[in-house]
């Protein structure tokens, strides 16, 4: 005689400490066990794609900053690449190096934030989060040095980047590169082998390889499921083809792997930055592109490996100064497709862990 129990439905969000923005999940619980979930989003919808239709190609750069506001540089890069493809613009080599350099720094910053909030969701009283933010600040300081803003950078432009880094940027970067591995080591000592972290995340929220591929999940989440797929290797853009770096690939596809893949990617990103510093040539940083330019009618799709996955911009031009249509393939949004499958049968506490390990950003999900 198994006693039947009554399930309760609770609303997690849209205002909830660990939904990373305004995400709402209606969870049906049997005791602590998740029976059913219904993700509801759109609370942060700002109509970026529609707004892009009435901005000029250059002005749209400022909109892309606000997609995934933890990795603005990479968003900029994806967008300007689509524009360049559409308009057939040349990008000077130095600009390509600068793009790769800043994008990788941004990836480190974004992963640090992802790790920090993931551990915050695990309930670690903010300490790892504070450490992660402390290191992230240093990267943001560099961004402020290079383009005057810390988060909404608007650094890249169709045809290049806005500005040459100031002379003091290079020594600052060198110092950062020499100190950063030490900080990451410290972070790793703090959390990687912590028994509680391992117990909470190992085997939790499994995302099998097939499911990950079928639901077109990308980025660290896909790599944690055992697929060695990285656009920087699979479809090298800018100067990634010349960079020597490895791809961390998980074997279980659980929360711990997703988290560890991010930690290891930080090291690889730092490697890329170092190579950029060594290889970067002198030269112009922006090709001659008028402010208002009219790409020929047609369409173009460009994608980059953003910190959360494949970020793609699909632009359609009708020959005007603004795109006819701008479609954004946001990785965070698509990474949420398998959320239901991953969550069913786990406990409420695991919900936060799994959701946190996906590292989504609501600015990108709702666009």
């Amino acid at each position: 005689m198994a006693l039947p129990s009554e399930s309760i439905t609770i609303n997690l969000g849209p205002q909830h400490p660990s939904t990373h923005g305004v995400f709402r999940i209606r969870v049906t619980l049997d005791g602590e066990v998740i029976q059913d979930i219904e993700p509801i989003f759109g609370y942060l919808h700002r109509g970026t794609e529609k707004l892009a239709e009435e901005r000029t190609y250059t002005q749209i750069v400022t909109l892309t900053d606000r997609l995934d506001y933890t990795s603005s540089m990479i968003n900029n890069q994806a967008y300007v690449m689509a524009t360049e493809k559409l308009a057939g613009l040349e990008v000077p080599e130095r600009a390509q190096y600068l793009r790769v350099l800043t994008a990788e720094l941004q990836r480190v910053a974004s992963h640090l934030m992802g790790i920090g909030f993931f551990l915050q969701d695990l309930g670690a009283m903010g300490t790892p989060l504070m450490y992660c933010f402390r290191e992230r600040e240093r990267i943001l300081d560099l961004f402020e040095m290079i383009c005057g803003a810390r988060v909404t950078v608007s650094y890249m432009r169709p045809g290049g980047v806005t500005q040459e880094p100031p002379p003091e940027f290079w020594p600052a970067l060198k110092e950062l590169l020499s100190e950063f591995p030490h900080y990451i080591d410290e972070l790793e000592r703090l959390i990687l082998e912590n028994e509680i972290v391992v117990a909470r995340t190992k085997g939790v929220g499994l995302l099998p390889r097939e499911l990950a591929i079928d639901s077109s999940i990308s980025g660290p989440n896909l790599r944690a499921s055992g697929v060695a797929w990285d656009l920087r290797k699979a479809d090298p853009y800018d100067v990634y083809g010349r960079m020597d770096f490895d791809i961390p690939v998980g074997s279980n596809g659980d929360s711990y792997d997703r988290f560890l893949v991010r930690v290891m990617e930080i090291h690889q990103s730092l490697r890329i930055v170092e190579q950029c510093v060594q290889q970067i040539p002198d030269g112009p940083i922006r090709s001659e592109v008028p402010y208002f330019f009219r790409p020929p009618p047609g369409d173009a799709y460009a994608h980059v490996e953003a910190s959360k996955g494949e970020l793609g911009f699909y632009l359609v031009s009708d020959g005007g100064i603004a795109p006819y249509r701008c479609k954004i393939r946001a990785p965070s949004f698509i990474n949420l497709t398998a959320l239901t499958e991953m969550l069913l049968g786990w406990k409420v506490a695991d919900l936060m862990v799994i959701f946190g390990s996906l590292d989504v950003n609501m600015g990108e999900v709702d666009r």
Partner: protein
Amino acid sequence: MPFGLGIAKGMMVTLRNLARKPVTVQYPEQRVTQNPRFRGEDFVWYEERCTGCASCAKYCPQGIIKIVTSPSGEQTQEGEKYKLETFDIEIARCMFCGLCVEACPYDALHMGTGFERAMPRKSDLVITVDELRASAKRPSTWFRPQLQDRGYDPASGEEVSWQDAGREATVAPTYDDMLKRWVEKR
């Protein structure tokens, strides 16, 4: 590996950080150093350099710069210069992307360095032409390589006169010059 070692390692890390100097600063008394390129809210505008071409207004993604001009009768090399009657920047909606500064062909508009303009009313968050005229001229070096090359740092408190703010001191460039310099220099 004995069980509990991971936790012990983590505890040692936090303990070591206990002895470390705090990284936060006490804001009103202490401030973090601001980089010269910081894009702040108080725009710096040189009326002497401005021709009223309204490039900035046109380039602004948000459309928050409002410019009303009238003929001034003052002749320059390119033609008649306009007199500025209104130059309102509604910074409540400004996102400090700096495109207006990037667009200004005469180096008349610069980003500022401030960030403390909390106001109770949205209507107070408009920088009017009078305020632009009166404000301290400490331009950010964002998109102004000429200032940066000179080693200018707005944090030093030093003001820049309108003669020094341009890519060239006084002579207004021709359009070709301007386009060339504008595109090549970056």
